[in-house]
């Protein structure tokens, strides 16, 4: 019964937290750029407006995938909240990404395809880091269960800091911030228009936005795991990471997808692999 309440609470509260974070993001970014910025609640107004629009689409299949995106994202978040298997969490998150990509592919639109192909490269960039993180958890705890992390006294940050650094750029990719706002962007860029979300409109775009809210909560939640006892330290670290991303976004230029994959598969994987090998050797 407790778990049931937790599930409902997560489904209801996570988008509120996520939406607020997005509001804060817009406000801070605006201040950094010398603008005043919208009200904190602006993301909610946007989504409500989109929700009231007509259901117009460019393909009959598109909407199925965008639903999948949101549902898999929620499922993935539930895995975190219910302290389930970290591998399952990563798989579900990956497939949420795949659903979005397929949504982008499911119409003959040049800009949507640009975005979808690049989103796929983003998955290629972050998925191995997340899977390595899961293996790192196993190396540390002897199980993939997130519950084992929660019950640990010593924070994971001390032994898994290389993976933590790798996770920080996964956060950048996931938040679609510079230098990784590659498949779509918070600002309209000429060559991709709005990238993968170009062809989503009305309620379908609203669903996409809500899924993004869930996603930010999920990724920050994973970061918080690095200091799970007491959890408020972890949450502070996560919020710090969030603010760091905003700064990086405003000082970094947008890079290419190829550069992102190369960076991730060199620096990110080396950090992750070195971390795991070290833990393996130390455990004997």
């Amino acid at each position, binding site marked *: 019964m407790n778990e049931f309440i937790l599930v409902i609470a997560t489904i209801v509260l996570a988008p509120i937290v996520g939406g607020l974070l997005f509001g804060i993001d817009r406000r801070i970014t605006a201040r950094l750029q010398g603008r005043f910025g919208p009200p904190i609640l602006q993301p909610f107004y946007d989504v409500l407006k989109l929700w009231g629009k007509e259901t*117009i689409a460019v393909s009959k299949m598109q909407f199925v995938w965008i639903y999948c995106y949101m549902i898999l994202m929620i*499922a993935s978040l539930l895995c975190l909240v219910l302290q389930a298997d970290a591998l399952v969490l990563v798989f579900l998150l990956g497939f949420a990404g795949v659903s979005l990509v397929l949504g982008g*592919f499911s119409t003959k639109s040049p800009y949507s395809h640009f975005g979808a*192909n690049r989103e796929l490269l983003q998955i290629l960039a972050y*998925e191995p880091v997340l899977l390595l993180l899961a293996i790192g958890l196993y190396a540390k705890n002897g199980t993939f269960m997130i519950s084992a992390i929660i019950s640990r006294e010593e924070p994971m940050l001390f032994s898994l800091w290389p993976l933590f650094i790798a996770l920080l750029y996964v956060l950048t990719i996931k938040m679609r911030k510079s230098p990784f706002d590659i498949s779509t962007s918070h600002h309209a860029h000429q060559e991709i228009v709005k990238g993968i979300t170009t062809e989503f409109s009305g309620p379908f775009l609203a669903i996409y936005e809500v899924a993004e809210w869930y996603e930010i909560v999920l990724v920050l939640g994973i970061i918080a795991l690095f200091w799970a006892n007491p959890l408020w330290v972890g949450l502070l670290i996560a919020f710090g990471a969030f603010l760091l991303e905003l700064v990086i976004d405003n000082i970094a230029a947008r890079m290419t997808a190829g550069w992102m994959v190369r960076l991730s598969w060199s620096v990110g994987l080396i950090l992750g692999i070195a971390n795991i090998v070290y833990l393996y050797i130390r455990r004997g």
Partner: protein
Amino acid sequence: MTDWMMAIAILLPVVSGILILVVRNYFARGVIVVLTAIALIANSLLFAAKGPLTYTPPPGFDWATLIAVLDYAILITYLIIGFKYRNWLVVIFSATQFLPLLYFEFVMKAHAHPEPAFFVDHLAIVMTLIISIIGSLICIYAIRYMRDHEEHLHLTKSRQSRFLFWLVIFLGAMNALIFSNNLYWMYFFWEVTTLCCFMLISHDKTKIAIENAARALWMNATGGTAFILAIIYLYSTQGGSAGLSIQNILSGHVHGAAMLLPVALLCYTGCTKAAQMPFQSWLLGAMVAPTPVSALLHSSTMVKAGVYMVLRFAPAYAGTYLSSAIAIVGAFTFFGASALAISQTTGKRVLAYSTIANLGLIIACAGINTPLSIAAAILLIIFHAISKGLLFMCAGAIEHQIWSREIEDMEGLAAKAPLITLITAVGMLSMFMPPFGMLLGKWVALEAAYKVPLAAIFFVLASTLTIVFWTKWLGRLLEVVPKLGWPLEKLSPSYSVPLWTMFIAVFVVGFGIGPIYHSFISSATGNVISGVNAIVASNWSDIVLASTGLKGGATVLGSFPVWTLYIILGIALLLPMLFFGLRPTQLRQVYLCGEQSGGVDTDEWLAEADVKTRFILGGYYFQGTVGEKAMNPWVNTVAILLLAVMIGCGVIIR
């Protein structure tokens, strides 16, 4: 009863094959194939119901001599093939089998008849279910496929009988192979499958078909050579005939310092047949054959014999360096083949690389050699057989719709052939998406992989690459212009029955994994690990569960908490309901910067000087990074080194 069951499993395909060869009428031939299929399926279910058994053919007929004679006949056929097509590699590697065999029979005067001749444990039952059910469905599919195929080629003289003959015989040989306890007999059936494979690949008799078939032949003949050397070694060091009983090898009766080398050789043999790197080129070459061949080779026969071999001998190399080496060999293939799959522009080659990758994963699981990883290997064998069988049949059906195998030509297939696209999409998703089985297998594999960290890292990289190449291809199929109304295409029953059966099977087996695990996989895992006589090991599921340190409340597959599965199941159930939710009410054109030339059903835009131009979208293939030219040299080098290390580990005793 047992007599009949064994006869139907092994000899019936041979009899039906000969009948098919004689009967020249399309419908009569079809009826024979369908009846054989039904008999085989029923028989395999009977095996499943009856449980493990051992069997030795009753005295009265000299099977041993027959097999010996046929052994020579097959090797002489190889030699003839080699000389006929002037392929010296075939000649060399047939000779390297022929001479040791002569030595074994006439110099050593070997008398290789360990009893029982056959033993059917749970693993063999799982295998025979796959071979008989999926293999038979593919044979049914082939009835119509081959007719279309020949019509397209405008052949004057039909060669369908010959094709179906080899196809059906293949099933019998596979059944016999997995039932064998006598290693010497297993060798014979092993060679029969190699021969069937050659005949089927070379079926179209084009230059490239014969070349590729010959490549398959010599590569598998190197495996056969290792096989016969292992037999001679075992026979001479492990006390003659008894040393050739698989049960004895596994139960440690003949275990000794010298055991590891023959086991390493047998694993090498398994790797050749399972097309592990650097032998992947034979399976890729096999793509020139008509699609039912690919479906059969990839799902239920041939390559599955390779992984069966490695899996079967898992207890014989448990806890050795050899075991870790096998894990790394398989994991490397998983990684290399997944990367190469991204660069492929031909649908069937993507499927082939995906098969090679998954076989690598299965072999790696055998090498990791814990109860959990062995369970993963068996899960993967089952799910892969279903999904890949389905996907190849889809590939064939697509080919007969658009007469092309190129992924770029499949662009927008969802509008041209919605039914096949639906089935194909489910097939593809079942290879890597929850809640389908393959993902479950990969999940279990990853849970078990930490024991060999290098393998675990390859798993991580490879499963990411897997997502990329499947999504990329699926994306091409889905790319449609926003047109209303897609007419459904018509499918012949010979296509639709196997396709829809497998389609349903993907779901049934995916969702029914709990019961299936309890009734088959746990005991099969137990059989593999204990390696002892099948009948003893029935309580192994408990040990599997206990050894993975699960908490209370977890039931399925070791450490899997039940409700995690519920979440996934819930998603699966929710998805179809969404179709009735917020559907789009209107379709509009896509965004083309205001330069559209017409309504929703066109993909033209106004180019320079307002000329109507169709715009073209293409997929990414990254040939420069992961193309065969860029990857093959170093991938093959690493793979050869790893294989050498693997056999080297056979010499190191621990």
